[in-house]
């Protein structure tokens, strides 16, 4: 019954049904957002949420479809951010090869993807909860490494004076262009993940998440699929890292610290790991809280607030905001998108 719907529906649907009314409304709202928002709301809220949403998305791809919860996503983003600083221009008088952006960006994203695949290759040696330990250890060790090494990472101070490129007569760090740049890349990543999850690879990955032994017995190369998922997630995290370094204009060990690594996990969990939209929701909530927490608890105790919210979400609704939504709209609760054990 359900099978029949799935097979004959795909050819007959028009583009609106294919895209989903919700996506269209959301897309139009996001495109028109700059008309009503001030510069602050465009970059500090809009752009920043989209960047951290992409980071959360890269985690959601691994955790939701692959059952691998990583704490090293900010590390991967940090690698591409550092690569931009090293390959392009910075004003810290160390390295800085002065490559143009169209050369530096692909290399930075490639470096991030390869690093992510390596992290994945190391962590898929073990299973389950070990992944979280190994990735946290890698994230922490990388943070300490960036702090103690001056030849590559310029130590504690990191790199400053990194500028977003200007071409076609547009300065891409200006509020509106930067927002649209973030939006474009975020939509692209979102669509890619959504499409990928329904592709053969995505289906295989989810099957591996649910029963790796059976998939191995069926002749699938389990490790290769998992590592490839890490590679893809590394591309998204790498793109987010490029945006992050353009947004901040600088990158330092603090950018890739343990706090930041945990923030990405918090964002993904608060939003929900069942659907790619979850991390963006979570990022928006966290960024709004971060910005307006001063009015609630004062800037000092923000971490207590976010920690409590996180604890409540984990206790009350393991599927995050999406899970709460799913209780109201039961048809959203698709069994196939549940996070792995």
């Amino acid at each position, binding site marked *: 019954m359900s099978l029949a719907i799935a097979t004959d529906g795909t050819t007959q649907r028009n583009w609106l049904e294919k895209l989903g009314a919700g996506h269209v409304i959301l897309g139009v709202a996001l495109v028109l957002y700059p008309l009503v928002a001030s510069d602050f709301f465009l970059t500090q809220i809009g752009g920043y949420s989209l960047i951290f949403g992409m980071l959360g998305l890269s985690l959601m791809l691994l955790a939701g479809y692959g059952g691998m919860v990583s704490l090293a996503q900010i590390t991967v983003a940090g690698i591409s951010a550092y690569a931009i600083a090293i390959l392009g221009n910075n004003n810290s008088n160390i390295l800085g090869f002065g490559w143009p952006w169209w050369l530096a960006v692909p290399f930075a994203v490639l470096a991030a993807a390869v690093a992510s695949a390596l992290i994945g290759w190391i962590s898929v040696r073990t299973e389950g909860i070990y992944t979280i330990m190994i990735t946290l250890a890698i994230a922490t060790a990388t943070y300490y490494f960036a702090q103690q090494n001056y030849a590559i990472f310029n130590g504690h101070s990191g790199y400053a004076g990194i500028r977003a490129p200007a071409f076609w007569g547009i300065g891409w760090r200006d509020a509106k262009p930067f927002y649209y740049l973030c939006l474009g890349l975020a939509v692209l990543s979102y669509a890619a993940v959504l499409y990928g999850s329904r592709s053969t690879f995505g289906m295989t990955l989810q099957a591996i998440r649910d029963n790796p032994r059976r998939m191995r017995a069926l002749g699938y190369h389990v490790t290769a699929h998992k590592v490839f998922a890490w590679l893809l997630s590394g591309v998204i995290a790498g793109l987010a890292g490029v945006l992050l370094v353009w947004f901040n204009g600088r990158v330092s060990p603090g950018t890739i610290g343990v706090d930041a690594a945990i923030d990405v996990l918090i964002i993904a969990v608060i939003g929900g790991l069942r659907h790619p939209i979850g991390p963006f929701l979570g990022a928006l909530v966290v960024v709004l809280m971060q910005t307006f927490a001063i009015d609630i608890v004062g800037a000092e*105790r*923000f971490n207590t607030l976010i920690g409590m919210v996180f*604890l409540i979400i984990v*206790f009350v609704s393991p599927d995050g905001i999406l899970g709460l939504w799913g209780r109201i709209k039961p048809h959203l609760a698709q069994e196939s998108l549940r996070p792995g054990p």
Partner: protein
Amino acid sequence: MSLLDRPSQTLSSGGITGRQAWGLVGLLAAAIVAWLVFAVWPDWLNAILISKKAFVSAILNGITLAGLYFLVASGFTLIFGLMRNVNLAHGSLYLLGAYIGYEVTNRTGYWLLGVAAGFAVLAVVGVVMQVFVFRRLEGDDLRQTLVSIGISIVAADLMLAVWAGGTYQITTPEWLDGALTLPVITAVRSNGASVFLTYPLYRVVVLAAAIVIGVVLWLMLHKTRVGMMIRAGVDDRAMLQASGVNVHAVFAIVFAVGAGLAGFAGVVGGSALSVAPGEDVRYLLASLVVVIVGGMGSITGAAIGALLIGLAEQIGLVYFPTYGIVLTFVIMVVTLAVRPQGIMGKAR
């Protein structure tokens, strides 16, 4: 058992088993280390390794640091091994213990009282965490881990609120001050007199305490009834429960011991080094790597892991300060590549 798990072990090294081969390698390494420590070094060796004093100090610092790491990580590995609970708030337990030790020592003037308070308070905190938080999420290890992350964030922030960002030093009593002259000749003066190495007495005591506690833990695990239950639980929790043991009591005991040891290590470590925000992350990283390298739920594994990481950190600090952490990386990656379950971990 090892025959079934790893048939290649007995076949590969023709004549001697893998275990014997490793034993030989270990003996050889021990002999080399012993020579390095006790012999008067020829000049070429001094040239390579900066000086004998620097080298031996690095080794000693590494071993004492390993003692601290062992104290923190043994609790972490037992909790993880038994309850499958990756308690990422373990570093916070260390730091809280250190702060409590500081307060108690400062107010009463008795350092030993501070140490005792660090252990006792954290043991209670551990039981509370297990009974009121983790027990509710039993069997869902991902959520337990997420909750422990939440706790660590809140705890770090609240500790920052109470003790601010400053660095504290717990004052040790006078009988622990001073230095010990070790029977290790670092150099020979031109007049033929030997220069012996001196080392802070306190650090030697820390190491001794860690070894004593390690032995006590091992005896508790291998010679007592509770220890038997814990080991059985690490191997097969469901079976332990099925045989009529009150596993929740066992869990509470392990959490009390694990958290208490972290608190104890906090006070002891806070006296040797210093207490400051961020130390929690450092000891959490150490615990993670020690468990990954040593294997979960194994006290012996924790000791080996702690020794490797402590030595790697201190040797790295002396010989390649800007790449020191890479050694830790390498140890972790090599272990995962060769033996994913850890050196003393059992294949699952």
